[in-house]
């Protein structure tokens, strides 16, 4: 069995990527299973999705904790311990990272013990599909390529079918199919390590029931979410030109996240640790003194 785990943020399209891999494998006559982690998924929040592929009927269920392939749509997630990108990496043959950076450097920086494969899906997707497009087609195709499903018609059909079910326009689907095809030009199948005889997924742990304060999560630190630093969600950062600012207060009033505060002279100050980059402030600034800058992280 091939077990694949996708990591990304809400809006990156990792759930659809897992479905595209599943559909493509299904079209080649294999048994497949795909599922996302259901729960707190949000645009920008860490999300995982799973695909299992086998020649036999798949009896295994649940999260993939022993992946053969790990695909990462956003490398900033490595710094979020809650995302657990490297859980079970000892089983993995390859970790794929959407990044323009050097793969050896990435492996060292994030302590990845197995080979790393990279491709800059962000630039490719933005160039071919457009700004703000999700990575579902390109990431799903990357998974297909690494898993050895490289037949262009099969992959195109899987992309087409999954994006149609999301009601995308035919033009947008065509762009995604084009982008997917370009991914196939860059990636090829990797060899998957054999599992030891008798390997099974980790056993299911029965839940432990605790009563009262022990069984109920309680938070005693009010307003501590500022320590989560949701600024890593941001793709574009708002920059305020204070020389042109009229201190009207609109950006302050309309920031959903309270990530803009007013200083003692009533000028707005952006909290870049937490600004998610929605850019409502840029749209609403009446004197257009807020501009967007592409976020660059090293």
């Amino acid at each position, binding site marked *: 069995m091939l077990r694949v785990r996708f990591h990304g943020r*809400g*809006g990156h399209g990792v759930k659809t990527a897992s479905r595209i891999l599943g559909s493509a494998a299904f079209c080649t006559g294999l048994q497949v299973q795909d599922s996302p982690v259901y729960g*707190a998924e*949000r*645009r*920008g*929040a860490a999300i995982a999705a799973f695909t299992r592929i086998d020649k036999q009927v798949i009896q295994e269920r649940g999260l993939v904790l022993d992946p053969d392939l790990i695909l990462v749509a956003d490398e900033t997630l490595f710094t979020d311990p809650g995302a657990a990108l490297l859980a079970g990496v000892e089983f993995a043959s390859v970790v794929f990272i959407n990044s323009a950076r050097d793969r050896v450097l990435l492996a060292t920086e994030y302590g990845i013990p197995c080979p790393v494969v990279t491709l800059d899906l962000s630039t490719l997707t933005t160039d071919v599909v457009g700004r*703000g497009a999700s990575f579902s087609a390109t990431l799903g195709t990357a998974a297909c390529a690494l898993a050895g499903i490289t037949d262009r018609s099969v992959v195109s059909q899987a992309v087409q079918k999954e994006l149609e079910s999301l*009601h995308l*326009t035919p033009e947008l689907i065509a762009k995604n199919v084009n982008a997917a095809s370009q991914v196939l030009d860059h990636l090829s199948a990797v060899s998957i390590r054999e599992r030891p005889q008798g390997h099974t997924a980790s056993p299911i742990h029965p839940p432990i029931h605790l009563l009262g304060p022990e069984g109920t*999560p309680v*938070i005693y*630190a*009010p*307003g*501590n*979410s*500022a*320590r*989560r*630093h*949701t600024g890593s*969600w*941001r793709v574009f950062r708002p920059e305020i030109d204070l020389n042109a600012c009229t201190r*009207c*207060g*609109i950006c302050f*009033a*309309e*920031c*959903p*996240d*309270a*990530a803009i*505060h*007013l200083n003692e002279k*009533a000028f707005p100050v952006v*909290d870049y*640790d*937490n*600004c*998610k*980059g*929605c*850019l*409502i402030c*840029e*749209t*609403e600034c009446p004197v257009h003194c807020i501009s967007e800058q592409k976020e660059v992280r090293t």
Partner: protein
Amino acid sequence: MKVKREFFRNLKELPTEELLAPGSPMCAGCGGLITLRLVLKVLGPNVVVVNAAGCLTMLAAYPYSPLRASWLYTTMGSAPAGAQGVRDALDVLIARGRLPASEDLRVVVLAGDGSTLDIGLSSMSGAIHRGLDFHYICYDNEAFGNTGFQGSSSSPFGSRTATSPAGTTQHKKDLFALWLAHRPPYAATVSAADPVDLAEKVRRSMQFRGPKLFVGLATCPPGWGIDPAQGHHVGKLALDTGIWPLKEAVHGEVRHTYVPDHLKPVEDYLQTQARFHHLFSPQRHDDILATIQNEVIGYWNEVRHREFPQTLLGELSRADLR
């Protein structure tokens, strides 16, 4: 035309204190979050939020909370019942001298439209009927946003949801009218696109004892299919097209707090959102668009008759849209 305000006249008068910290797990550009942030600013720090399951229950994801106030999480169907329990407990503790009256809290229910109009409808109706002294804040994103944007009974006619891929055939329930039928001391519709109107209404409501009910249109970037940066703009279009009227009712007497001089065509609003794209492409559905437009014109003609009988505001027609 805007009404005269008593407490907040402009943005600069809004409280600068933040009672909602950044770093919540809400989507970038969340319309429900900005609504809550503005409401809490006015209500102040001494509140306890009773949160029905929905998008905003993810506010406090262990071990983090953006709220400086106390917070309690209930099932989707029972937030008003939870609020009753909290209110009663506070009252009992104060009456027995185990809690100083100065430590009393305002009880605030926070619920989405799915909880309010579908799953928690009877619990909400019961609490209002019992005259519970609380604030009810419904953030209306017009679907079950948290679970993947399935249709709710608040989804507007013709809109695409996960459960109505070709557009809803039902019409949105009128929550405000439903509330008025319960005769609460105060009920209002608000929008984060008009923060001063919102703040004014919350402040006005604080002088009443009993149920104080608010519904705010919560723009939803992923569910509605809008760029997060456009949230506020789309919210304003909802006001200027007359789709989302701003009004309040004090002891049942309704008045509109913003009456657009000229309504914009509803298409200006609908076209900004992917959930209405099927009404325009691949072919236009003039019948559905006309139904939506006529409903809005009919609504505002009724408002003009009822609230401004002496003025020169004549009958609106499609020719008046601009």
